[in-house]
């Protein structure tokens, strides 16, 4: 039938023969370690949870659904953001500066591709220009904030093209769009976008007539030119392995000549969260970024988290219920505030997420970590909402709602001021996402208890996404703008409140999904958009504090959406069986990021094998 299938059966047969003799003896542990073709345990760092299936491509411009190909073990970003200190740390760029009309970076003179060529400003301009040409690339959106990315030589003159006699330029200037001046998103891009080698990618693209789809068919499995400390070693449906590049330029430039401690980094591809948990317990994994319930029970097996006690992890994002402002009666602020007062956040934190969250505070600025400096407890107290069923009922009464309860205390229906029955409000969440399911159940139960007719509706994952972006929901679970980045908390506000690209229900919106604050409708609050465009340009702390406070107060007063709990977004659990000196709250030399995820890679130079 399919020619390939025949070859396969032969191989299958061989494998079966191998497996047929069911030897029940337990192999010697050390045997595997002594083998040349295997990965010696003392030189291998096992990480898990980043990848769930076999990577389909290692093309640096390919489908970003497979994060390992974009991990900075292979390719590198210009800068790395430290979410503990708020500082940008150097990588390909040794320094950067934010000016009024531009952001400027200077590359490290030592930076090299693994074919020996220097990483130059041309590679940077080429990478960013790709986004200008190909709108489907992830780097494309940055171009609404930029007018040009230019390379400059040592002499201060622009070096547009490689040519005879021109040294490799190291200075790149990102010219900001004066209409939409926003250095924050540019900084976000500088620490998120991997730089690709122009001298390799450009000819390949040109050969294919600049057809990106054709180019994406290249899989870059072998001999790829990259700048990072590791190279791809092997990849199968069971695991992905990378091997250390001993000639990595950064060893000298940033680590005093030291090499990363692990020669191999292996990511096994397990099929469930449980498998990663078990492997971690058994010391087969050294670090995993998967959800491990009741982590405190695993401590005696050598499994650790960032903190030894509640909340165990550093939270960075806020799962919430988005409210559809285009569906009656949800445009009523009293109803939204009543919901926010009704929900039992403590139950959500303790029962749905194993207590891995700080207690929820009003607004959408995190009251801990770096964002704490913008948080005002005074405002929260004055304008915010928290679990208080009596206040919830009071809000409902103030807006003229009445609720009818049955003899057993079960809510029968909610009526509006005009006596009409309110439609049941359905809360959508993807089926099978168990933590979200329990969050939604608790929220629905609390809302019904005060007299709001809400029900859960768990839907198939793919129709969930469609419903989300097209606005086909009453209330829906979502975590906006998750990753820690230099633009927080601005980007969280932007993701929830911006009215740019406002679209009617049925068309897609990727930000402000609840369609709050319609600029063409009465009651539009222009102040919110003003603040959103102002904050990125503010440089003084006092001004920023005032702006953030004002924006957060507007959020609390309007309660456009219902934040529910704090969750870690970048986090890990680790085992102390084979490697020591991993970053944790007691030893916070790096933020909680696994190796390969931006700054987390730097732990590879600090960890040490445990000698048994």
């Amino acid at each position, binding site marked *: *039938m399919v020619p*390939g299938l025949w*070859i*396969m059966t032969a191989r299958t047969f*061989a*494998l*079966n023969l*191998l*497996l*047929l*003799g*069911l*030897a*029940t003896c337990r*192999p010697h542990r050390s*045997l*595997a370690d002594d*083998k040349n*073709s295997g*990965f010696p*345990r003392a030189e291998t760092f*096992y990480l898990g949870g980043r990848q769930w*299936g*076999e990577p*389909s*491509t290692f093309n640096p411009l*390919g*489908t*970003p*659904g497979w994060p390992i190909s974009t991990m900075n073990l292979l390719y590198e970003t210009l800068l790395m953001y430290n979410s503990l200190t708020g500082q940008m740390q150097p990588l390909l760029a040794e320094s950067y500066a934010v000016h009024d009309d531009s952001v400027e970076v200077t590359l490290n003179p030592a930076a090299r591709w693994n074919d020996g060529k220097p990483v130059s400003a041309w590679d940077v301009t080429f990478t960013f220009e790709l986004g200008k040409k190909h*709108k*489907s690339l*992830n780097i*494309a959106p940055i171009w609404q904030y930029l007018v040009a990315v230019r390379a400059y030589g040592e002499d201060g003159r622009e070096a547009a093209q490689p040519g005879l006699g021109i040294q490799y330029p190291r200075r790149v200037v990102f010219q900001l769009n004066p209409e939409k001046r926003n250095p924050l998103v540019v900084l976000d891009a500088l620490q998120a976008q991997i730089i690709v080698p122009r001298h390799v990618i450009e000819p390949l693209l040109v050969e294919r007539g600049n057809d990106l*789809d054709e180019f994406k068919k290249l*899989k870059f499995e072998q001999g790829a030119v990259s700048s990072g400390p590791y190279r791809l070693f092997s990849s199968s*449906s*069971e695991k992905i392995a990378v091997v250390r590049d001993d000639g990595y330029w950064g060893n000298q430039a940033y680590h005093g000549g030291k090499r990363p401690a692990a020669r191999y980094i292996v990511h096994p591809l*397990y*099929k*469930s969260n449980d*498998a990663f948990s*078990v*492997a971690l317990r*058994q010391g*087969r994994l050294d670090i995993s970024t998967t959800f491990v319930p009741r982590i405190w029970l695993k401590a005696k097996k050598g499994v650790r988290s960032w903190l030894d006690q509640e909340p165990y992890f550093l939270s960075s994002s806020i799962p919430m219920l988005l409210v559809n402002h285009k569906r009656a009666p949800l445009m009523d602020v009293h109803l939204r505030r009543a919901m926010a007062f009704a929900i039992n956040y403590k139950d959500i934190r303790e029962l749905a997420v194993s207590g891995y969250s700080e207690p929820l505070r009003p607004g959408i600025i995190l009251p801990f970590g770096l964002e704490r400096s913008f948080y005002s407890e005074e405002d929260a107290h004055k304008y915010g909402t928290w679990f208080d069923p009596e206040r919830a009922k009071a809000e409902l009464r103030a807006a003229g709602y009445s609720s009818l309860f049955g003899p057993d205390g079960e809510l029968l229906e909610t009526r509006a001021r005009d006596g009409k029955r309110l439609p049941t409000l359905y809360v959508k969440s993807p089926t099978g996402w168990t933590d979200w399911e329990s969050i939604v159940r608790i929220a629905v139960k609390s809302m019904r208890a005060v007299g709001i007719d809400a029900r859960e509706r768990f839907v*198939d*994952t*793919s*129709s969930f*996404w*469609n419903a989300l*972006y097209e606005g086909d929901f009453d209330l829906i679970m979502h975590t906006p*703008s998750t990753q820690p980045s230099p633009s927080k908390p601005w*980007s969280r506000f932007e993701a929830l409140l911006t009215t740019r*690209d406002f679209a009617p229900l049925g068309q*897609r*919106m*990727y*930000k402000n999904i609840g369609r709050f604050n319609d600029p063409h409708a009465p009651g539009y609050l222009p102040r919110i958009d003003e603040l959103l465009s102002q904050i990125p340009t503010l440089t003084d702390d006092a001004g920023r504090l005032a702006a953030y406070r004002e924006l957060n107060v507007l959020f609390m007063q309007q309660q456009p959406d219902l934040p529910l709990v704090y969750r870690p977004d970048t986090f890990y659990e680790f085992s102390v069986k084979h490697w020591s000196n991993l970053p944790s709250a007691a030893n916070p030399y790096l933020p909680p990021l696994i190796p390969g995820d931006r700054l987390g890679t730097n732990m590879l130079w600090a960890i040490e094998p445990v000698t048994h």
Partner: protein
Amino acid sequence: MLENHPTISHVVGRAGWYLLTFLVAITINFFLPRLGDANPVDTIMAKVSEGLDATSARAKEEAYLKEFDLVQVDASGKVKRDAQGKPVRTSLGSQFINYLGMCVRGDLGGSILQHPKRVSEIIKTALPWTLALQLPTIVFGWLLGNLLGALAAYKRGVFDTLMYPLALLASAIPAFCFGMLLVYVLGIRLEWFPAVGGYDDGLTPEVSWAFFQSASYYYVLPFLSVFLIVVGGQAIGMRSMCIYELGTDYVKYAKLLGIKEHKILFYMFRNAMLPQLTGLALALGTMVGGALITEMIFSYPGLGMAVLTAIQGNDYPLISGCTLLITVCVLLANFSVDVLVGFLDPRVRAARQAGK
């Protein structure tokens, strides 16, 4: 012409029916996953759309829709859009004709979620895992189960009293339950066997003693989790078949004639075997469908997992490819049973001879 060759006409007749079944099956396989309103591109977009603005998100979505041939494209290569600005989907009919053409050429198409991988590549890597897990369990389980069943029926007494309830118990336990129990007790609590994976993470598959040892050691739990259940089920079936045969006239007659015991056993076994053989062939045919639960518990990257992820993400070509493979294998197994039974079963043979 075929009237003089009853066997050939039997085979040809059956083949015709199977061809028809096959056509109906692939039609259903094609349309069923596509009937819902979900769309694989939504799943991809959900993963990649964070931070995108409306224009780039739209460009990206269009690029995917075009790539997977899900939308109509005008002469200049632009995606056609309807009055509301929604892309016009390629009609299911033309997709189906396209699909049939590819089937004929032996091309299963490209996966959507694992783009740019081909479906045949994915099946090729997943199938060995499924076969390695299933083939030995089914074959050995079938052999041992039938042996035990026949013995129990013939010997009766203490052996049967012990074996029968144990076999009932084994066949009644749901596979996932038993697998998890094994993992929990032998893998996690006692740590006698590894709980997940197919071989040591520190090894790569190769023909070597170390790999063989590691793979066998890792194979114990998954093997047991299915094997015992197969043994139980087969033993019960065989036991009742044999008890039935024991009561038949030919056995009584043979006993009266004083034919040796092992010879009677052989006759009996041959007759009781027929339905069991059919069962074996069917089990071998359906095994490519994968033992999803076992694969999940032990993190085996087999076909069951491939189908599951494909269905979750509406990866149409991969769903169709896997179901096509399963259909072909099941039909082939059924067909060979039909043909084999024609040769093996004296009754069927006799009936044909009589009809001649």
